[in-house]
Every structure is written in structure tokens, then in C-alpha cells.
């Protein structure tokens, strides 16, 4: 067990009060660190790099789609561009985005621990991620892959002429990084909670990360095995998915989506945890229905494993299985809806502070609702037959994964930035960025709902001229969205040099992370915190505590 566990055994111990940012300036102090906060920074820089690469691919796609003839890229080039975009964004940005950066930084602080349970494993997780990322970059430089991020067989095993094996090896390796993070979070949450931090006092951010860690550990191995089988069939002709060899292509889809649908919840559950923190902090109120929101996270993690077949409604899957998957897919909307209702109910009669984090949170709720409701439409068998593999689906999952997760990631980054860096950013610019992102996102993806409903298939870059107007709107929105995403890069980096110093608790929020200095000391707390009450204990509902707030 780590040093972090020892701290709880010695609650009165005084530890050195030096900021984690000042605890060493050499390269070795960063690249060999076992401090969860520094590893979170390493992840933040890494995923930003991959976000940029995935974003460049998206820009190429949107530029190509400006004209119906697809003038910019060849058919093959277009296939490789959207494959690269998907693979990089899913495995090298979205999945590690909130858990490995914000979660890594905040979880030990929130539960009153000195570090994660396995600090060395945490660093190993980052190195594994980087190795996988470098292999992916080598694939890009070597010509890329044209299977899409889904690696569907028999395309990936028999026909694709790109670097399929190298790509699946990269994703396979990145999976180990994910599994290690999941194990680390589960053990940390079980074993390293501060005295008095019972399960009923855990912040909802912790509950959502606990839920996502379960998915990390239980789903990722299935993807790893599936991708190895793809490589084995492609390299050695072992018959698993090829009917000529006694295999079944639909088996790939079952195995792939058993991981990849829960992967959507890997992306959105941490985002939901972020929103619970942002909403309660902005409203200065306890969350409405704490246990409902907490259990909803676990319910989403569990039910999310039972819905994968809705990706296969038109693949030849049995209609009876499809009906069952349809029912379960509708059922998973219930815990998601509980969360949305409870967030909005939390705002009711709140002492609301409209700062950038709340704007991002409100943006998340609106976009998530749009993405969720269109998800319900897609769960209906009859509608799915009409819009399957169209831009409607593309718009739907971007509303969840980008409108939801990326917006929440930016919200989290703004909310905890003062804690992470010890600096305050320009609030006006941050509010403008939140609005630009919201407008840019909707301009990009709402026309894609219309395109899909009109019959525009996904993954085609040559299309009928009547679709051009909506495609141009979408590309214009993407440009605006790029501006919105670029803005925080500038004012946040500027704040590192020129921003005012942040107090320990700039938002007047509850939570143990706000009781320590900004940035936190190397070992998080100068004294072991002891928890005596539940989360979100705000003066609005507890006036007696206002004087102490």
C-alpha cells in the first residue's frame, strides 16, 4: 500500500507545506513523478496534443465537405481522415480526458488522501498511454488506416490496406492504461478515504468516477481480446470473424460494442460527475436527491453494458434480440433523466453565481438532453432502420461525446483551474468562450441531424448538391467551434504568468479540495482532514454555517 494509506494512520502528522508545482523543477521531477497532481498535468498536456491532432483531421473533413464533389481529398484519403479523427478522439482524448486529468488531480483531494493508492501504477499508466499514442502517430505518418474507429470485419481483416495491425496494437496497449487507472481509482476510493468520509458523504464526482472505473476494468479487456483476434485473423488467417474460415462477422460487432457502448458511458459518466459539482457550487445548494444521482451513476454503468445490440439493428441481428436491446436502451435513459431533472431542481431557488463553469454546465445539460433524446429515437427499431449510418447518428453521438463530455471537460478545467495552477483566469473571456463553444457546436452538428434525416449517409464525402447548404453551415460552425476551443488555450496559459493568485476557495464551494491551498501542497493537506458532514453543505440551506463560510 502507498504512503497515502499511512497518512490516515497518523492523522496528526504535520507535513511540508510546499506547493506541488515548486516541489522540483527538473525534467526528472516531472517525468519520474509519482505525485497524482503532476501526473494529471502530464495527461493534460498529452491529451491536449492528441485533441489538436484529432481536431486537424476534423478540420480536413469539414473542409472537404464544403463542396459536393469532395474536391480536397481522394476517397481513400477521406476514409483515412475520419478514421484517424475517430481513433485519436475516442482513445487518446475522450476516454482519458476527464478521469486521467481532472479525476487524477481531484479524486485524492476530494476524499482527503495524499495520493492515489498506487502512485507508481499511475505513472506507468501515463507511460503506457504515451507508448500507445506514439504508435498511433507512427500509423499516421505511415499512411494511416481506413477502417473507421470501429474496425468492422470483414473490412478490417480482409480488405483494408492500411496499417490495421499497428493501429489495433496501439488501441490494445492504450487499454492497459485505462485498466490500471480504473483499478487505481477503485482501490483509492475504497481504501484511502479520510476519517469520517463515509460512502454517503462522498461527492458525486467520486461516485461517477467509481462507476466509470467499474466499466474501465470490466469492459476494456473485451476490446483488447477482440482487437487481438482481428490482428490474429488478418496476420495468421485464424478463423474467428471470416465466414470462409468458419467465423462470423457479427461476432465482432457483438464483442466490439460490448466494450464500445459502455465506452460512451466511460466518456459521459465523469462528465456527469463534473456537472454535479459545478451545479451545486454555482447554486450554493445541496444537490437535489443525492442518493438518486449517486445510484444513477452505478445504474448507468450496469445497464450501459446491456444495450450494445442497438448498434446492430440493421446488421442481421435477430429481431427478437433487437427488440430486447431496444427496450434496454430506452431503460438506460431513466437514470440519465434522473440526473438531468435533479441538476435543474438543484438550481431552483439557488443563490446562483453565473460564472464560466456554470455556463459550461448549462451548455452540457442542454446538449446532453438533445443527444439523449435523439438517442431514444435511435433506440426505436423502426426509426433506427431509417436513420442508421446517416448523419443523424453522427450528430447524436457528437451531442453526447463532444457537446456533453468536451463541454464538461472545459467546465471542469475552468472550475478547478485555480486549484490546479493557483491562478485566476479572465472571467469575461471564459464566459465568451463558453457561449462561442455552445453556438459553434450547435451550428456544426444541428444541421447534421437534418442531413441525416434527409438521408445523407455517414462516411461519404461526395454527396448530392441539395445537401450542400447544410454542409456549409456545419463547416462554418466547426470553424466557430475551433475558435471557441482555442480561446481557453490562450487565456488559461496567460493566467499562468499574469493571472491573479487564486485563494484556496475562489467559488465559495464545499468539498475537501477547497480546504487546502491553491495550488495544493505536495502531499495535498498539511494536516489530515477529518470529515464531519455530508457534501454540499451550503449556508443557503444552513444559515448557521454562513458565518463560517
Amino acid at each position, binding site marked *: 500500500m502507498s504512503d497515502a494509506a499511512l497518512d490516515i494512520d497518523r492523522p496528526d502528522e504535520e507535513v511540508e507545506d510546499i506547493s506541488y508545482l515548486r516541489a522540483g523543477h527538473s525534467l526528472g521531477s516531472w517525468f519520474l513523478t509519482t505525485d497524482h497532481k503532476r501526473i494529471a498535468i502530464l495527461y493534460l498536456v498529452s491529451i491536449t496534443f492528441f485533441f489538436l491532432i484529432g481536431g486537424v483531421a476534423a478540420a480536413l473533413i469539414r473542409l472537404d465537405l464544403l463542396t459536393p464533389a469532395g474536391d480536397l481529398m481522394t476517397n481513400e484519403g477521406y476514409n483515412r481522415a475520419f478514421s484517424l479523427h475517430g481513433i485519436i478522439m475516442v482513445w487518446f482524448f475522450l476516454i482519458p480526458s476527464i478521469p486521467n486529468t481532472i479525476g487524477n488531480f481531484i479524486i485524492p483531494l476530494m476524499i482527503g488522501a495524499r495520493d492515489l493508492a498506487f502512485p507508481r501504477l499511475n505513472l506507468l499508466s501515463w507511460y503506457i498511454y504515451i507508448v500507445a499514442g506514439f504508435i498511433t502517430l507512427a500509423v499516421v505518418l505511415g499512411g494511416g488506416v481506413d477502417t473507421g474507429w470501429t474496425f468492422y470485419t470483414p473490412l478490417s481483416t480482409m480488405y483494408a490496406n492500411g496499417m490495421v495491425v499497428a493501429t489495433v496494437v496501439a488501441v490494445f496497449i492504450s487499454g492497459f492504461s485505462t485498466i490500471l487507472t480504473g483499478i487505481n481509482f477503485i482501490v483509492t476510493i*475504497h481504501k484511502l478515504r479520510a476519517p469520517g468520509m463515509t460512502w454517503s458523504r462522498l461527492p458525486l464526482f467520486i461516485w461517477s468516477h467509481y462507476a466509470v472505473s*467499474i466499466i474501465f476494468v*470490466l469492459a476494456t479487456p*473485451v476490446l483488447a481480446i477482440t482487437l487481438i483476434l482481428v490482428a490474429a485473423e488478418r496476420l495468421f488467417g485464424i478463423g474467428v470473424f471470416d465466414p470462409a474460415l468458419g467465423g462470423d462477422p*457479427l*461476432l465482432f460487432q*457483438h*464483442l466490439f460494442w*460490448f466494450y464500445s457502448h459502455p465506452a460512451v458511458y466511460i466518456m459521459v459518466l465523469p462528465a456527469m460527475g463534473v456537472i454535479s459539482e459545478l451545479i451545486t457550487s454555482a447554486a450554493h445548494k445541496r444537490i437535489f436527491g443525492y442518493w438518486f444521482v449517486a445510484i444513477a451513476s452505478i445504474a448507468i454503468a450496469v445497464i450501459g*453494458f*446491456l444495450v*450494445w*445490440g442497438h448498434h*446492430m439493428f440493421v446488421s*442481421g*441481428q*435477430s*429481431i*427478437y*434480440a433487437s427488440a*430486447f*436491446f431496444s427496450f434496454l436502451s430506452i431503460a438506460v435513459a431513466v437514470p440519465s433523466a434522473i440526473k438531468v431533472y435533479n441538476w435543474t431542481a438543484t438550481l431552483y431557488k439557488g443563490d446562483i453565481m453565473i460564472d464560466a463553469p456554470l455556463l459550461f454546465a448549462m451548455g452540457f445539460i442542454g446538449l446532453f438532453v438533445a443527444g439523449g433524446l435523439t438517442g431514444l429515437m435511435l433506440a426505436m427499431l423502426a426509426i433506427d432502420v431509417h436513420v442508421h449510418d446517416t448523419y443523424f447518428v453522427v450528430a447524436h453521438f457528437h451531442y453526447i461525446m463532444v457537446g456533453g463530455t468536451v463541454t464538461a471537460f472545459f467546465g471542469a478545467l475552468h472550475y478547478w483551474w485555480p486549484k490546479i495552477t493557483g491562478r485566476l483566469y479572465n472571467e469575461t473571456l471564459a464566459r465568451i468562450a463558453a457561449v462561442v463553444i455552445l453556438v459553434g457546436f450547435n451550428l456544426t452538428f444541428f444541421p447534421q441531424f437534418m442531413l441525416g434525416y434527409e438521408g445523407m449517409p455517414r462516411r461519404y464525402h461526395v454527396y448530392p448538391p441539395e445537401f450542400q447548404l447544410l454542409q456549409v453551415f456545419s463547416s462554418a460552425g466547426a470553424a466557430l467551434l475551433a475558435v471557441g476551443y482555442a480561446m481557453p488555450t490562450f487565456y488559461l496559459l496567460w493566467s499562468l504568468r499574469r493571472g491573479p493568485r487564486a485563494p484556496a476557495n475562489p467559488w465559495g464551494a464545499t468539498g475537501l479540495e477547497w480546504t487546502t491551498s491553491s495550488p495544493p501542497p505536495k502531499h495535498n493537506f498539511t494536516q489530515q482532514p477529518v470529515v464531519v458532514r455530508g457534501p454540499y453543505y451550503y449556508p443557503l440551506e444552513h444559515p448557521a454555517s454562513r458565518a463560517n463560510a
Partner: protein
Amino acid sequence: MIRLVLVSAALMLLLAVTVVAAHLPLGPAKPWIAYGIAFAKATLILWFFMEMRSEGATARLAMVAAGVWLLMMLTLTAADYLTRSWIGG
């Protein structure tokens, strides 16, 4: 130590049974016999080599959860394969 050697020997024996069963004319029972042998091997490995016999309730719960998740995957996948022919494909 002796226990582990005995378990290793049992695993080798089960491996031999797997190989022999693969070559016997067992008809439709053949895959089910193979599944049964695989289940027995996995149980031995979990219980002795992964030390589940001496673990606490939480670790055992995690093991059961993994089994339940595997069962979920197999059951719902089978729900597709076993019902495809019900309406003529």
C-alpha cells in the same frame, strides 16, 4: 507448496482430458464437455493460484462481478444467435 503442485497436476490432467475429448466421437455434446473442462480449469486457477480461497468478501465480490459480466455478454450474444431462425432468418 504441495497444494500448488497438486493443482498444477490437476490442470495438466484436465488438459489431457481436453485433448482426448476433442478426438472422441461425442457429437453435439463435444463443445459442452469442452466448456465444462474449461470452467473447471478456471475455477482451480481462480481459487488456488489467484488465491481467492484466502481473500476477503470484497475481492470475492469483484471476482463474482467479472463472472456475472461475462455471463451477461455471453447470454445476450446467444440471444441473437439462438433466435435468428425463429422467423426464418
